[in-house]
């Protein structure tokens, strides 16, 4: 069972992702409300996969991605983005994000991306 850390400032989004993943055999080992917390939790939990929102308070997704990659350069990070954030996603890919999910997403969409990393 793959472990997942969900980083998103919106509880709603965390819930949506969590529901999909839990139903499909992923283990949600942690949730974080902002980048800073996300990085901290990544360090503690070392999940197989991180889903990372871009727009967050305290520390945004890109900064968090950089930090997570410094902790573990093989970290598997999936960016959760919205339309209009193409540039950020590209940045994230260059910084080593494995893949990305576009909001609003469907269950199928999420699972496909998760299983690809």
């Amino acid at each position, binding site marked *: 069972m793959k472990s997942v850390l969900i980083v998103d*400032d*919106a*509880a*709603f*989004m965390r*819930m*949506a992702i969590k*529901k999909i993943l839990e139903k499909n055999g992923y283990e949600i080992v942690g949730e974080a*409300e902002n980048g800073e*917390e996300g990085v901290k939790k990544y360090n503690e939990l070392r999940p197989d996969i991180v889903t990372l929102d871009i*727009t*967050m*308070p305290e520390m945004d997704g890109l900064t968090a991605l950089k930090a997570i990659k410094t902790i573990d350069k093989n970290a598997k990070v999936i960016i959760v*983005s*919205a*339309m*209009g*954030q*193409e*540039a*950020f*996603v*590209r*940045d994230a*890919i*260059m910084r080593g994000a494995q*893949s*990305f999910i*576009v*909001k*609003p*997403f*469907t*269950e199928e*969409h999420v699972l*496909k*991306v998760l299983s*690809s990393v």
Partner: protein
Amino acid sequence: MSKLTRDPMLEMFIFETAQLLEQLEQIIINSEKTKSYSDQNINEIFRIMHTIKGSSAMMLYDDISILAHSIEDLFYFIRERRPLSMDFSELTDLILDGADFIKTELSKIEADGKAGGKPDELIESIKKFLLTLKDKNLIEDEICITKEKPVPKKEQRYYIGSDDLSGIPVKKTLKATIYFEEGCRMENVRAFSIIHNFKGIASDISYYPSDIIENDETEEIIRKEGFCVYLKTEYSLDTIREILMQTVFLRHLELEEVDQVDEVIQRQRSKEIILEDPLPATIEAKMVERVQSIEAQTHSLNQSIISVNVSRLDKLMDLVGEMVIAEAMVVQNPDLKELELDNFEKAARQLNKITGEIQDIVMAIRMVPLSGTFHKMHRIVRDMSKRLKKDVNLDIIGEEIEVDKNIIEHISDPLMHLMRNTLDHGIETTEERLAKGKTPTGTIVLEAKNVGSDVLIIIKDDGKGLDKEKILKKARENGLLYKSEEDMTDKEIYNLIFLPGFSTKDSVTEYSGRGVGMDVVTRNIETIGGTVSVDSVLDKGTMVTLKIPLTLAIIDGMNIKVGKSCYTIPTISIKESFRPLEKDIIIEPNGNEMIMVRGQCYPILRLHKLYGVNTETTEFMDGIFVMVEQDEKALCIFADELVGQQQVVVKLLPNYITNFKKINGLAGCTLLGDGSISLILDIAGLTNV
């Protein structure tokens, strides 16, 4: 996606969006004071709208999503371009309108799961505002509606221009055409991702469409025609195929070995012409299209909720107050004294009934649930627990309980203060908790419940509790002890912390302490006629209880007379009134007067002495006693006579009096039927003297 729209998700959506709107409002209100938006606020508004956009799109509430998107765009522009001239008040109105719209939609969704409003007009105004902003600030022609950060040149290093393609040596050239699944979106970014993955595997990569980085419109082309890549590599065709097959949302892949790449250049040229469509126009057109289609889809739902400006409600409340006074003036008119007026009495009763009903309705309109105020605490707990490195959980109970709008405004700050105190001083750090054998996560319960005409708000934590010795020591040092230590109950000792000038924390922390003590809480709560009390068990936790009235504006009062002055006692505090028996009066050697009632001894308060009023009634036998109680403290007020009971409209004491002198024991004043002024007694103030 309908699978997702089950109750918990909907609930979370409503809850979180409402919370975000609350934050948004807070930001706007704060910004309004300074007449400008700080960078942080702009960021925050942008983020809030971004989140609402995402969540509402997930829940298929497209109108909300589009509206949020338009505000997000607006703030994106403001954030990136920092326009110099900006109509601040118009901007604020727009956002508030937007927030109100979403709020109304939320309550509709809450009621029957359907949103039905049409924000089109509002979206238009927001767009118009954005356009004027751009015009006014004359920033290039290039309009950035898409959230594209200008991409630095170096990021384009994977793109090798057509000129460089000539004279490429050895290695074989492969051509791959990739088709993505329908609906996977951001095809251009996916294409970019593929190119990025070839780093180190292939060289001399060229691709079509070539402007996937700069131009997000390319996703359309890729969707239709696929993404075409030429690359030179030492790896075999199969290896490259394997790599490409791993692409997420891959629908179809064509891979072949080719001799040259000329074709690309040609196609690129031809494409460029097609691509010349100006970017903003297409997006704008798309937007309008979308909005129109949504307009067509939206069913006209009857709007059962309207938002009303609070100031109008205040005015209405004032008018009702005036009406209550006017009614008393008519019915209790001195001219009518001693007259037989049967029909008048009947009509007066009717009038009284109707004014009473109107008053009830107006009160009901002003009632708002505590949820907004309560949920603000989540943020505080979140921020503080993180910064203080404490693990804290906040449970909220009874958020649906309603109180008057004015009261909400008064309890928000004290609640925040109490919450900060609890987090800062009450809850221990995780290590401390574990050492004490407690759960690592501290719990704070914020609860509201109705008790008679009051609402109790209770903040309970499972932290370290109050230290009696420490409190006593501090109180001794500051001379705050009002009776001997031996005589004080635990509760009385704990409540010392609410006295002005009391603070046990030696070091001032970021959150609480700042020289402001708990007395601020007391003062705030007392201005709305409430009380604060605290109870605690060492190492088990602390419980602070705020008792607040449901409403302030109109109370039932008992009018009493002292000399020529009139006072009003809130009926709710009155236990009984009686004429004393001589034998019950006790006078201590030091002059303290007490009275025995059913074996209990109560202090006597002579109002005429307290306020220096001239009266002929100074003998207890000539006057009347009114026993009042608040917070389990009771005393007997001595007055000349009871005048009668009536509803009174509470008015604050005018500033020119309060500025001049703080008068203890007065909650406000009111107008009586005969036009005279009566002072409303503040029982909490009197019993605590």
